[in-house]
């Protein structure tokens, strides 16, 4: 019998770690991925992931089901990441392009290696551009474009209105586009990412 999110939350409020284990299993990859993309560093993302769930467990008695667990956890994660970024002397831009062999998608092996290289170069360019953006703009781009959250969900994560989200996304996209264009020009690539 499938346990609902509300039932899990109720059990967590009672201190049921098995219930929290299910929540962890369901959301830990997304929280980690979000932290990794925000911070660009695996160890920091690991720290933030764990702290997010510790904080979530401790704050579970106060969790209101108006927001989903997903948006609530991402909100906690985003707050912790912002604190982490503020504590840095300088921004880390570290993109670990080495993927472990057994974590590549299955069809990657069938693709033309040149396509893989070109795509990874463009991906790296966008990743670098993302990390050159202000953290607030990077955050909203990641929430919408990578985590695929709706405007309403993003509004809950960021604690702002839907209208504000739309405006911020528009500005962030423009900023990202300009940074990508600038990086591509510096690398000698054309507008569509070709050399």
């Amino acid at each position, binding site marked *: 019998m499938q346990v609902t999110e509300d039932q899990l939350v109720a059990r967590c409020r009672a201190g049921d770690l098995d219930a929290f284990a299910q929540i962890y299993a369901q959301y830990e990859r997304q929280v980690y*991925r979000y932290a990794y*993309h925000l911070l660009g560093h*695996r160890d920091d993302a690991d720290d933030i992931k764990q702290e997010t769930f510790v904080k979530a467990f401790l704050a579970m008695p106060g969790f209101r089901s108006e927001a989903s667990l997903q948006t609530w956890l991402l909100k906690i994660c985003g707050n*912790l990441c912002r604190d982490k970024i503020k504590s840095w002397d300088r921004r880390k831009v570290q993109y670990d392009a080495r993927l472990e062999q*057994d974590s590549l998608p299955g069809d990657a092996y069938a693709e033309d290696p040149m396509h893989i290289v070109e795509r990874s170069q463009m*991906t790296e360019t966008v990743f670098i551009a993302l990390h050159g953006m202000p953290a607030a703009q990077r955050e909203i781009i990641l929430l919408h*474009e990578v985590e695929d959250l709706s405007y309403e969900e993003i509004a809950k994560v960021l604690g702002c209105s839907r209208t504000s989200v739309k405006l911020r996304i528009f500005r962030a996209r423009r900023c990202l586009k300009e940074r990508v*264009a600038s990086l591509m020009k510096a690398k000698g690539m054309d507008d569509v990412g070709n050399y």
Partner: protein
Amino acid sequence: MWGTTECGAVSSLLWNYTAHRLSEGEIERVERHLAHCGACRAEADSYRATVDALASIRRTPVPESRRGWHELYARLSAPEQPRAASRNRPIFPVFAWGSAVCAAGALCFLFFSRPATVPSSGVRNSPALAELGRGAMPERTASAVSPYSDVASRGQLTNAEIADALAAADSGDNSAPSQSVSHPHIRRVLRRPVQLADARPAVHSYAVAGKIKRRSRPTSDAHLDGRGASGAGDQSDYVLTPVSATSESDAGAEYVMGSVMMTARSSDTEVASGW
């Protein structure tokens, strides 16, 4: 005909157009405009590479997390207050009282509800942990009695640790042939036998979901079972392999349920802990 007003209106749709997020009516409007406006077409092209790259970022797995549930579990169920593990200052001092109350509540719950320690025989079968399994993972027996249950009493690896490692692996992508777990003794969980690439260091053994297989004969391959790969020739190396394993080398091997251990990679400086 296509004034700046229409260009302005279409321009605001171009990103979502390249990301395939528009409705049919909106797509039609954009494409009708792009057919006659070179400037907007160029803008759409400039968005396309960025949108595709963001989609690629979305699809590309990030480096695997090194920290998992077992660590968090230990921290949350510890009698003392959980503290931030960050290298920086503690992050939430304001939660000190709340965390004390919750930690006390968790401690009382654990003390009065179920034994804190895991029985030495059989694999711990927490229903919640069993529910963590997704995909085509073999179902673990609720209370398998293991001929090797004395292993747990040796203090090498408890069944709870193995169950936690398996649960941590279950929370990963079940389509991948293997899953790293963060555990001092268990390196990786295999979902099916994997022939290691030549470039990889020989790994002595793995813990996987399923049954334990004790090698009845040595192998000289740099195979996942680890016997002979290091040359240690330790007769007591064990490895868990999936129930569905059908390779020739598995023929004639004994299958038993119970706990298992791992040793380190031969080329790593990681300390081995096994037997």
